[in-house]
């Protein structure tokens, strides 16, 4: 707990407790924890003398904030206009169907969080899928699933290695 408070303290200090930098602070918190844990938000609100509702309003307004833990991998599918025209909806459907996950959700085994975003600015190579920061271009439903099944495999092989 003391450790947790320290994280918040560092973040607040980084921005000189400037309330105008609330969004960057919350971004830093999320970068640290992977999501915005309620306890940390409480502590951030207290340090900035803001009501928790202010932070909650910000956390729920902006699409990039998460109030729940994310999966081990981050899968982002671009559904900007060009990706859409070039088949992103079919890719999204295929992922949802195969992994039983809706956009914005996380698979039940926490393998990955599946996000759909509006345009990542790589329209020239659409459709684009980003897995843990790596760009895959010209994606098809089949190639997207192949990449995602690869994630699962690596995971199990790592676990197996650990066991033996």
């Amino acid at each position, binding site marked *: 707990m003391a450790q947790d408070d320290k994280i918040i303290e560092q973040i607040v200090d980084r921005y000189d407790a400037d309330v105008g930098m609330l969004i960057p602070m919350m971004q830093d918190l999320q970068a640290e924890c992977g999501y915005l844990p309620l306890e940390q938000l409480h502590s951030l609100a207290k340090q900035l003398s803001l009501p928790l509702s202010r932070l909650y309003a910000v956390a729920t307004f902006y699409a990039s904030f998460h109030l729940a833990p994310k999966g081990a991998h981050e899968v982002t599918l671009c559904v900007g206009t060009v990706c*859409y025209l070039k088949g992103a909806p079919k890719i999204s459907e295929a992922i949802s169907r195969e992994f039983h996950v809706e956009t914005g959700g996380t698979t039940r085994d926490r393998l990955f969080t599946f996000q759909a975003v*509006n345009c990542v*600015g790589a329209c020239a190579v659409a459709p684009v899928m980003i897995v843990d920061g790596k760009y895959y271009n010209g994606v098809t439903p089949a190639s997207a699933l192949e990449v995602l099944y690869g994630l699962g495999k690596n995971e199990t092989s790592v676990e197996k290695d650990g066991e033996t």
Partner: protein
Amino acid sequence: MTLLSNKRLSSIAELDAQRKELLSSRAPSTKSVYVCTGPGCAAKGSPKLYELFREAVSQANVDVEIRAKAVGCHGLCEYGPIVIIEPGDIFYQRVEEPDVAEIFRETVLGGRLVDRLLYEHPATGEKLDTVDKIPFYQVQQRVALAYNGLIDPTEITDYITEGGYSALAKVLSSMTAEEVVSEVEAAGLRGRGGGGFPTARKWRSCREAEGSPKYVICNGDEGDPGAFMDRAIMEGNPHSVIEGMLIGAYAIGSSDGYIYVRNEYPLSVERLKLAIEQAKELGLIGENILGSSFSFDIRINRGGGAFVCGESTALMASLEGRPGEPRAKYVHTVESGLWEKPTNLNNVETWTNVPAIINRGGEWFAGIGTEKSKGTKVFSLVGKVVNTGLVEVPMGITLRQIIDEIGGGIPDGKRFKAVQTGGPSGGCIPAEHLDARVDFDELTKLGSMMGSGGMIVMDEDTCMVRVAKYFTDFLQKESCGKCTPCREGLAQMLYILDRITDGEGQVGDVERLEGLAELMEGTALCALGKTAANPVISTIRYFRDEYDAHIKEKHCPAKECRGLFRYEIDADACKSCGICLQNCPAEAITGEKKVPYVIDQEKCTLCGTCWEKCPFAAVLKV
């Protein structure tokens, strides 16, 4: 930064001396390898190419100087990764890792061409060796992107060598604030973010507004899907944005700047951060810049993933740490903006144009373009077009020139249907208006708008009702919900569009959409809501027959809306291979060897698997 001693430059003379030193240190015989690491090329693996070239340079045992540079977007993303070799301006396309050694040996060291990596003229098949021979580049004119592709965006010395920060020096040494505003006024520069408001008028209002401090903001929240102009500038030449802001701040009388960058652009943030650090080290940002009395600091904020934050008042709310909800515009932001202080906000591309205007004069800039739209505009040309990429053209060029001459037309022998400009608030322009000139006013007349510069080409396979639905769905999700017309109006529009594309459209639906559109335009709070109906209205205006076909004949002319067309097997083309039968999940296909297969329409679920799997294109959409 090998040459600079990281010493603060305390006068303009020192900056000039630094530049001279940098220029003289580069031997005329220097050979350069420019590897494009813009968004498109990077997604295709160009950073690895850069590494390999650097290795090759370090291992080469020759007495000429060779440098490998990772540079910003070259524009012709479709043919990436792109590598350019100097001297000679040799253009290599679709370069892969195994090609690096050959390019290095043959071209860099040997001065010979690697034929197979040259761009091939699509019509004549002729191999073109240099940038200026490629049709894609011939019609273009580069001002905002002038140094993209020439400089390493992570090295301030590259920018300074090419004349960077000389406009700032000129302003500080010889121009009054009013003279700067007048120069921008003479240039006729209008806001590149979409609105097209005269930049000089905004600057003057902010300068004359009462209150202090005054803020200067760069809007890098490039939210329009299909647009990546600002990303390419921020990542390819971040110092040009910073220099533009410095000049603007000097003219306005501001010492505090913000750059607001979209959450989805982490590399832009990284590049700008580094650029700001380097500029601070040299004293180009901070107190008493270049020994003058002018001081200016810049802070970067990342967005949170909300489209509406591209709207100026929403962006300012976000900078104050609040949800990005716009406010009514009768209070002008130049008088009461961020923290209720006078605030001047311009878009990335607008700022980038400023140093060029100061260096070459407003008159020069005004010589490019049309009567009321001056200069150039960067577009991201994407969608169903052969040469997708980033293009910069003089205002007044026709849509046809952009799509056919630069874009190389429509791929796969398909027919052009429409071009969508202006992002989600823009509209779709049909073939009969392809000869329209691209400027702020012409595009507005056609029911679309300039917007920030996304240009999405659509071919005959695109259903225009679905396009309208796509944008409405986008805007409905991005509406901040503050005002009722936008929040509820978009939801109702989407509901109607959904039923039309599901084949349940009712006679009168088009009129209902028009009614909602009028209401939203007249009563929504911000520009997002006021223009939200544009995609629907412009598609109704030019493609009314497609709406009618969906509603009255329950048929989708582009054969995209599931249920509004059928799959049939062309008996002449069918080779009876059985692939469709094996793959049909509904067991709706029957047939046997040597007899064409048939789809049972009663059983068919219209999933399209047979159409995708048929190797002979014998499955037709009718």
